[in-house]
């Protein structure tokens, strides 16, 4: 009965609802965007209304919020953190500098487009994005989860070769465990 198609559908609906309304964000301020996270979490904006909550370790988190530019040194850690997270997991690119480099377009130490190195589900533009835009980014992510379209992790697994090639191009000294889940 549990393998029946219809009951699987019901399970999917319940699970998607739960995933949609319980978003645990990894507490990792990778860039200057981290300064707008406290206002987003506190009164006036209060993201906890939407079920958004901080998680202390990658094992417990659902969303990796890349708050701004990534230097190559951080990129290595971010990839490691992302691979430690458990499915289903999502990535939100936060700020213009994750989209096209922003004002760091000619910097020798920051990557210019996040989605070459990691699968991004939602981008929030602006430098820096206001808490309202952060909330709308979360709302967009919820929409995508509900529609079952937030499949960044699946994309990452399918195109692991491609992502690895790109990552290894900017990280010269690559010694990381294999990604196998």
């Amino acid at each position, binding site marked *: 009965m549990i393998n029946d198609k219809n009951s699987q559908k019901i399970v999917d609906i*319940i*699970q998607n*609802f*739960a*995933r949609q*309304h*319980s978003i645990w964000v990894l*507490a990792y301020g990778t860039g200057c965007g981290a300064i707008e996270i406290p206002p987003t979490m*506190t*009164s006036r904006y*209060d993201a*906890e*209304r939407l*079920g958004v*909550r901080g*998680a*202390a*370790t*990658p*094992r*417990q*988190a*659902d969303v990796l919020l890349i708050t701004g530019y990534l230097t190559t040194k951080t990129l290595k850690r971010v990839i490691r953190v992302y691979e430690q*997270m*458990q*499915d*289903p997991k999502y990535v939100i690119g936060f700020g213009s500098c994750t989209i096209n480099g922003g004002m760091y377009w000619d910097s020798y130490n920051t990557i210019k487009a996040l989605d070459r190195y990691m699968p991004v589900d939602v981008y929030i533009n602006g430098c820096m994005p206001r808490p309202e835009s952060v909330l709308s980014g979360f709302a967009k992510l919820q929409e995508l989860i509900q529609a079952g379209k937030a499949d960044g992790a699946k994309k990452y697994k399918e195109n692991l070769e491609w992502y690895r090639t790109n990552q290894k191009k900017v990280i010269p000294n690559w010694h990381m465990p294999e990604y196998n*889940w």
Partner: protein
Amino acid sequence: MKEILYYTWGAIVSFVVAFSVGITYMGLNRKITARVQNRYGPPWYQNFIDVIKLSSKKTSIHHGVMQHMGPAFIMVTSVVSLLVIPILNGNKFFPNLNFQGDLIFLLYIMVFGPLGMALGAGQTGNPNSAIGVTRGLSQMAGFEIPWVMALVALMIQYKTTSIVDLMNVQVESGRWLMFSSPFAFLAAVMAMLGMFRYAPFDIVGAPQELASGPMSENGGKYLFVMMSAGSVFAFAKLTLYVDIFMGGADNLIILVVKTFALYLIPMLYGITSPRYRTEQSVRWFWGWPSFFGLLAILQAALF
């Protein structure tokens, strides 16, 4: 045969009740905390959603057998202690496994979970987990002393080691034990602050110090089991307090009211307190709470 079925049914029902009430309390905690902090806060059923989500997460970490056993130990502890604790007066709807000496049994079984967790956390290899477990065990050494003293005082005073007997004493005399042995109640409530691990005693999983302590490597389904076990255990502990000190409850509504009133103590204290360091916490428990425990024993022995 019929009796066994009856007991099984009772066990399942009490588990479901404990689970939902416990999770609701956690949700209310978040809501009330948010209101104190000038926020709107999540809905009260937020923790149900969290639990469902955690159970739906895939888990593909493997650190060894003991890591799987850790959450299981906690769950076993919660369920067993729930089964031993009578939920309502007179065992009308929730027949539980009460026997003479169950207070002593409870004292031991309540330590079993953290020990199991220690084994599990040790195997994950995360230094934060190891440190968190050490802290948890030291803190337990702190609050176990006033807690045991309070219980021993009751055992001496009423010459029984059965919870049901203690409940009957209160029903017959019409006087709650929190009034007839106030020092035992004080010591026990202060020990309860430590058992709930809210601030200022949230040193085990202090995020700023240890990420999340013993749970660092446990996400998804492990965390689901731990959260459920935690909420069941919270309800079991509150029920135990209500049973021993507040005259038990005749029906579920009274039980919920009484347990929630008790639950407000650690919660509100937690919202307005920073966190102790480990040795400060242990010293706190060996201070006033143990003193009250001693007074309770004296009271029981002398009067």
